């Protein structure tokens, strides 16, 4: 992503919320969603806006699983590791590839590929999906 695009987009995001500490997580969530990760520049801008010290913001950014301080890959695959899915072998699927519970237990094991739910997924099926994504 171009450096200028980041500057423009992020200001718009920052302005969505009042400059108070309680909006830290809202801001991090929106930035994570927009850029797939939280850069140190972004973190600094958020701290300037909310008044949260950088060390504290860093603690929050590293505490919660949904935030990443490094850019993620283009295709996101989530395999549910909830108990029902685990009993149906999802642990092996995840190991064979790599979330917490997605709350769709009746479809165990469940994987989410780029936002699309794949019910009753199997390792061979998922491998095929991954290969297809790699070819695209």
């Amino acid at each position, binding site marked *: 992503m171009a450096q200028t695009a980041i500057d423009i987009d992020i200001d718009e995001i920052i302005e969505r919320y009042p400059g*108070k*500490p*309680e*909006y*830290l*997580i*809202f801001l*991090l*969530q929106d930035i994570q969603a927009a850029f797939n990760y939280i850069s140190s520049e972004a973190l600094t801008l958020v701290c300037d806006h*909310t008044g*949260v010290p950088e060390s*504290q913001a860093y*603690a*929050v950014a590293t*505490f*919660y*699983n*949904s*935030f990443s301080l490094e850019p993620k890959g283009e295709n996101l695959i989530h395999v549910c*590791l*909830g*108990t*029902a*899915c*685990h*009993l149906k*072998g999802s*642990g*092996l699927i995840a*190991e*064979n590839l790599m*979330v*917490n*519970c*997605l*709350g*769709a*237990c*009746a*479809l*165990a094991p*469940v994987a989410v590929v780029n936002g699309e*739910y*794949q*019910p009753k997924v*199997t*390792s*061979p099926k998922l*491998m095929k999906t991954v290969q297809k994504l790699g070819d695209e």
Partner: protein
Amino acid sequence: MQATAKDTAELRLGSLEELEKLRGELRAAEDPNQTRIIVCHGTGCIANGSAGVTEALKAALAAAGEDIEVMPGIKTTGCHGFCSRGPLVIIKPKNIFYQQVKPGDAEEIVQKTIKAGEMVERLLYEHPQTGEKIETTEDIPFYAGQERVVLANIGQIDPTKIEDALRAGAYAGAAKALTNMEPKEVIEAVINSGLRGRGGAGFPTGIKWNLAAKHEGGQKYVLCNADEGDPGAFMDRSVMEGDPHAVVEGMIIGGYAIGADTGYVYVRAEYPLAIKHLEKALEDAKALGLLGENILGSGFNFDIRINRGAGAFVCGEETALMRSVEGKVGEPVPRPPYPSDKGLFGKPSVLNNVETWANVSRILDKGADWFAGLGTEKSKGTKVFALVGKVNNVGLVEVPMGIKLRDIVMEIGGGVPGSDHFKAVQTGGPSGGCLPWEDAELPVDFDSLIAAGSMMGSGGMIVMDERDCMVDVAKYFLGFLEEESCGKCFPCRLGVPRLRETLKRFSKGEGTVQDIDDLYSMAEAIKAGSLCALGGTAPNAVLSTLRYFRDEYEAHILEHRCPAGVCKDLITYSIDPEACTGCRACARACPQDAITGEKKKPHSIDESLCIRCGMCMESCKFGAVQVQ
């Protein structure tokens, strides 16, 4: 004048009378005896393609022309609960129940059932034991055994339309409370109902409210815990997706009772549909004057905000959740002070679970006595369970407290596939424990479950069979808790990994009986020293599986054997030469190239290369791959 959706968009209700007038008009506008098609759009059915079924039905209806008697438009609803049979299509008024419907079935449904009143046999539910085809929802054992109070409207209403919710009775309880009752009387009603928190701990709800209400004046908050982190639990998700107004209404009542003008709903980020429906519900309620300033002319102001979780199980803990709403790291704090004295932003706060709030709406509507008439003496009302795992009817069920465990699993659940009993049922998520088949007659209520070494928890109910290893299950839960531990207190931060390491050794066939004794003393220390229930209940998985399945632990340690065939280091995969056709599907799937053989002849697995990933077993269509 008949109220339409457009009319409600311009109304603002200024009193209880106006609300009831609107409700009457909305009900009069819909004939309950008219044929209408309902399609389940809960997350489960959507994942199975129900949106495509809806489109196909719409097209088939349009093509069928003018001469059929059916309510125009398809009603799409939240989760009907029978997730393993989706996509689900229900046809009213008879409640004809069609399961596993595909878009290609739409034409036939319209022509045969809607037009000619005949069944499409292949789409009907079949009783697993008798083979009998069952036509209507009420007669299906999965539904017949249930008592749907919290889930009453889900599957009947379009959750994105407040008109549907109003028709079903939404906000009657809140209107009564705000207009005709003092806050003290509302609290009394909740106390008298006997409602205990549905989030897991089962604390008496009315008493919690009283503790916050006793602070005179000042800023207070009510919160809804919609984090639902227990793996295997999706009750709250379904309520928020399928009947969000039930939660909104409950919080309005709670805010009024304790004197709070602001409510927060903390929803886990992994529930986008629930968040979307909740946002719509708030928007619609506000527009009608059911939320915001001077609700129904009562003088009471109340608004609700939504906070999303950010992927931390520990934020389902009351004080950690509040820290997260404050924008901080989700670490629990010591109590006292309790949140009812010093909670969110340091103010008196009441936090309740989604299901608890939904029950509050019903209680104020139908009365404390009605609610107290359900359930048992110390566990009033009903409980929603997510029944999952090795059970025929996987899905969401609501049953009266006190129902026998066996009735839930074997009757409503339709039994265990391939067996006449279950090995264990896990309740209470990672904080809970396993109940063995010997406990099948146990009444399911708060205190009985605790006495048996488990707990109610939020409602996850995971059925296990002989192919599930109890050592592996305990290891799994400990792994989960180790990952999710916030790290603040060392009994949890250091103790849980120690427990898990021990179980990992057991699963490899290592360890001694002394290790088992050590587990007990570690468990005591962790329980006594942990700051919150994550650590405090972490040992439960181990303790309860040891209590009922000690022989399984000993088989691992003393005989280096995993009776269930799960623990990777103790099992071997092999190919049955009688069943193998030599199709090489497994060989192609094997990531280690461990399978060899001539084409069309039985193949074999090289044990020294095999990593026990199980992909060969999954790819074999002939059941030739075996585990010992």
